[in-house]
């Protein structure tokens, strides 16, 4: 499941869904989840709030594509990806990625792969409101490095 939404998400409900939506729920012994939250500091600046813009349509398409890549590469069930858009405050949840697999290594790798690729492939943009004004967040070199690592590891 892929959802782009303004509302917050409930990690307990998503965990239930992740476990019970699979064809063979008791075949999956490993569940790895990632949650990304708004931090109160970024690059030495205090964050007041943040606005997340996206490209409707392409967002879902790019995430579906990443999910297909992960499923082709690891023996995982159907993952769940939730990403929020709109205005967010420090401490707010931004993104949820949940992955189930029979074995933990596949679940860990696929979950990290999904967030690494989301970071460089999915059309979301963050704008931060700080004490020094408003600015668009710069893309990070480390995010490109993190995703490139998976290409080498193929």
């Amino acid at each position, binding site marked *: 499941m892929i959802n782009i939404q303004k509302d917050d998400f409930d990690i307990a409900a998503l965990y239930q869904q992740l476990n019970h939506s699979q064809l063979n729920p008791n075949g999956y012994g490993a569940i790895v989840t990632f949650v990304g939250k708004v931090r109160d500091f970024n690059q030495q600046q205090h964050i007041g709030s943040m606005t*997340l813009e996206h*490209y409707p349509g*392409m967002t879902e*398409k790019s995430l579906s594509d990443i999910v297909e890549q992960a499923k082709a590469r690891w023996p995982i069930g159907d993952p769940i990806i939730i990403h929020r858009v709109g205005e967010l405050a420090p401490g707010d949840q931004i993104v949820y990625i949940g992955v189930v697999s029979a074995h933990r290594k596949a679940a860990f790798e696929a979950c990290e792969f999904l967030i690494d690729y*989301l970071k460089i492939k*999915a*059309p979301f943009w963050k704008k931060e409101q700080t004490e020094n004004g408003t600015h*668009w967040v710069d*893309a990070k070199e480390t995010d490109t490095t993190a995703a490139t690592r998976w290409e080498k590891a193929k």
Partner: protein
Amino acid sequence: MLKIIFFAQTRELVDCDSVDITFEAKLSQLENIRQLLVTRGDKWDLALQREKLLVAVNQTMSPWDTLINDGDEIAFFPPVTGG
């Protein structure tokens, strides 16, 4: 017709969400479209410098040598920062 869309800094700089332009054979390369848009003014020129500009054709990130067909949706935007 080509639908051209802008996001984030790029959208703010050109101060425009989207423009429709008529497809012509001479627009069959992405770079031709970029050059056409750049002539709209200084802000457009600044916003559409290829350095740090990404482009999606029909909602898929695409290289600058991608060929364009009539009816395509083309989006220009900066590197993404979600997650």
